[in-house]
């Protein structure tokens, strides 16, 4: 059906844009593999491959600590968000009570409100309760932020489960709690995976919140650590590039394996109330 010329043109366009997307990132990879002696303030093409920058960046930049912080925060946010979103999504999809749609729309506010809006009062509230500079100051606000999308996502999924399955469970005398955890949650595994991936990525990449909340160097998240590392190593780009890869790699690796989940989830992220 597709003519040869058309196909060639399509591939050409796709190739050009794939290259445009990749070149800056490949520049970082190439620079990171450049021997330290050959380093410059910009991209470099290595004479020989050298993994030394990664070791140096890892040690000098304390990235082991930063990655641990990021991992701890991101996993906590994912688990908390998933649990709360499953419960709330179930409520909005399967129960009937006054104010249900109003409460649902209230949760959706979080989709449109930028973190810049609530970070100021949040900082002073948490400071007054002594929670700044703790992982809680990252975990709880980011759970709140992720809930808007996640509740919406789970509610939609639960509503799509065929009524027959639910009726059958009810006839078997399953309680709401059992219905949710034994039937609905297992069937929603693909949706849960997509949601978990997205929440993990958003939390891992978040910058403003850790910048505001964290002053203790040992609690810095990976992107925050990178920003500080950058201001200290502006001239040695190969080192900075290696550090950038360390920070980006966990999410990119997940993306390589689960790209369909990422893309479908992110493109549906724009919602109208």
């Amino acid at each position, binding site marked *: 059906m597709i003519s040869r010329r058309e196909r060639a043109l399509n591939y050409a366009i796709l190739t050009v844009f794939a290259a445009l997307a990749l070149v800056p990132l490949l520049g970082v990879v190439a620079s990171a593999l450049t021997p330290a002696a050959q380093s410059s303030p910009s991209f470099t093409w290595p004479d020989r491959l050298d993994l030394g920058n990664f070791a140096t960046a890892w040690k000098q930049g304390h990235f082991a600590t930063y990655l641990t912080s990021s991992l701890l925060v991101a996993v906590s946010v994912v688990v908390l968000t998933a649990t709360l979103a499953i419960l709330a999504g179930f409520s909005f999809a399967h129960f009937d009570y006054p104010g249900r749609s109003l409460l649902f729309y209230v949760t959706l506010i979080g989709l449109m409100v930028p973190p810049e809006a609530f970070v*100021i009062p949040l900082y002073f509230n948490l400071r007054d309760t002594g929670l700044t500079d703790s992982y809680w100051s990252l975990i709880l606000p980011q759970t709140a932020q992720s809930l808007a999308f996640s509740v919406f996502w789970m509610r939609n999924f639960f509503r799509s489960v065929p009524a027959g399955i639910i009726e059958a469970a009810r006839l078997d005398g399953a309680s709401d709690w059992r219905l949710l955890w034994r039937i609905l949650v297992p069937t929603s595994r693909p949706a849960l995976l997509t949601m978990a991936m997205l929440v993990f990525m958003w939390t891992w990449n978040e910058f403003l919140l850790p910048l505001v909340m964290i002053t203790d160097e040992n609690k810095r998240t990976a992107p925050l650590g990178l920003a500080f590392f950058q201001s200290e190593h502006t001239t040695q780009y190969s080192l900075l590039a290696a550090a950038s890869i360390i920070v980006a790699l966990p999410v990119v690796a997940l993306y390589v394996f689960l790209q369909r989940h990422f893309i479908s989830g992110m493109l549906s992220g724009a919602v109208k109330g």
Partner: protein
Amino acid sequence: MAVTAPRPTARNRLAGAPTGRSARRRGRVQWKGYLYALPALTVLTVFLLVPLGQLVQISLYHWDGVSASTWAGLTNYTDIARDPQLRAGFLHAFVLILFFSVIPIALALLLAAVTTRAGRLRGVSVFRAMIFLPQVVAMVVTATAWTAIYAPDGVLNAALRTVGMEAVTRPWLGDFSTALPAVGLIGTWLQIGLCLVLFIAGIGQIPTELYEAAKIDGAGAVREFFAITLPGLRGQIAVALTLTVIAALRTFDLVYVATHGGPGNATSLPAFEVYNRAFGTGQVGSASAIAVVLTAVILLLTFLITKLQPKEDGT
């Protein structure tokens, strides 16, 4: 709502109303529903909704974050209109919309029109994954990559020198006239993949018969684009606009790492001013007022964009 990726759409068609109806049939208020929603609503209220309310309150005071605050009324707001530096911040944000939204969407539409049937090519998912990659890389890393491109001895200047355009070379992010467009182009690079992937998926959902009918009617490529492709992509365009406009207005990490708002205030943006004033210069009230206005602008634009969306998609 607008769900564009193929799978969620199928899911939503199913979503109809079967389960909601079965609940209603029983006809009584299911109080347990509140219980299930309670934990999520509590977290949302404490960490998002209450702070939002407090933000408005703080914006009405002069406060340095430490000593007692004094009533300011609306002066923090009127200052936004009066202070040229703040006005510039909002102006820059609107310039960024051009780079983050208008250019990527226009370009992606054009490309999508040419690659009408790219969705059905072999290996398209690999291309899609590569084109979409910038979206998942941490902004701090993206900024690091582009600072190397724009650096005085960077890739861009080196390329210009090799083609004999020595005169044009400059420290792109350090030059008053080019810093903002340079930041904007990073945004174009970031968003074009998102738009392209969205539109290619959208075109795949337009019935082929429409294109065949147009061919039979003798419509050229241009008419085909305006009569079929463009209206068929209305939902996707609305989604792309929402995502990219919000991204443009919220830009913070990129500017924080790449330019720190400079040179001078050539790349200062509302989100950056919010951070800078609240946590740098001790003007918490003013920062809050900027945050309120920024949020209002985002909500207003999101609302206007949803008006573009085809009606049958609504929740």
